[in-house]
């Protein structure tokens, strides 16, 4: 069964460093998402992406964050200058379309630790 994959599974970085989290969505999916889950808290929406542009973003997704689909398969989340509070599990998701009721399939996550 096709699935969303994410790399790396774990990333440790120093505060102020840039990180890039990578995702390979399911191949025929057109809509991509990033969510995050701070330890012990709810899963929170960050951003959705379609047709090479952001379609929706949350308040969390400030100028330090960016997303890109650099080629036909990868979808990346970049954090320009990491802060301690960016430590979280980051989940990528994809769906065939955002039409109402379309399931979002999640990847296994990247655990980011900012020191």
């Amino acid at each position, binding site marked *: 069964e096709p699935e969303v994959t994410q790399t790396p599974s774990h990333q440790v970085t120093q505060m102020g460093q840039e990180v890039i989290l990578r995702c390979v969505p399911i191949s025929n999916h057109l*809509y991509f998402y990033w969510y995050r889950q701070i330890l012990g808290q*709810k*899963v929170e*929406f960050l951003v*959705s992406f379609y047709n090479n542009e952001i379609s929706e973003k949350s308040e969390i997704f400030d100028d330090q964050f960016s997303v890109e689909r650099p080629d036909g398969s990868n979808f990346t989340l970049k954090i320009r200058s990491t802060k301690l509070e960016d430590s979280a599990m980051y989940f990528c998701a994809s769906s065939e379309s955002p039409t109402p009721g379309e399931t*979002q399939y999640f990847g*296994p996550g990247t655990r980011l630790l900012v020191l």
Partner: protein
Amino acid sequence: SQQGEEDPQALSIQEGENATMNCSYKTSINNLQWYRQNSGRGLVHLILIRSNEREKHSGRLRVTLDTSKKSSSLLITASRAADTASYFCATLRYNTDKLIFGTGTRLQVFP
């Protein structure tokens, strides 16, 4: 406003028993989805129920939705130790892409 609050926060049962988890939300929704998360792992989609549906089944899972009470329940019948995980409801409102997740129920099934 907060959306998606599950109860109980934690539930412990024996294998073979049924587990019921509830989710409440505050705004009108397009659909509601249930996900499972094994400790520290990814989110696995379980079932989706649309706002015009009242009940849905998938294997040992039964989901109900009461839009008048803004609540949903997830029933896992004949539970197994492998069902041990956290279960989250997530709502999708109209005209938005984003799922809003609840706080989750931690289910422990003892063999």
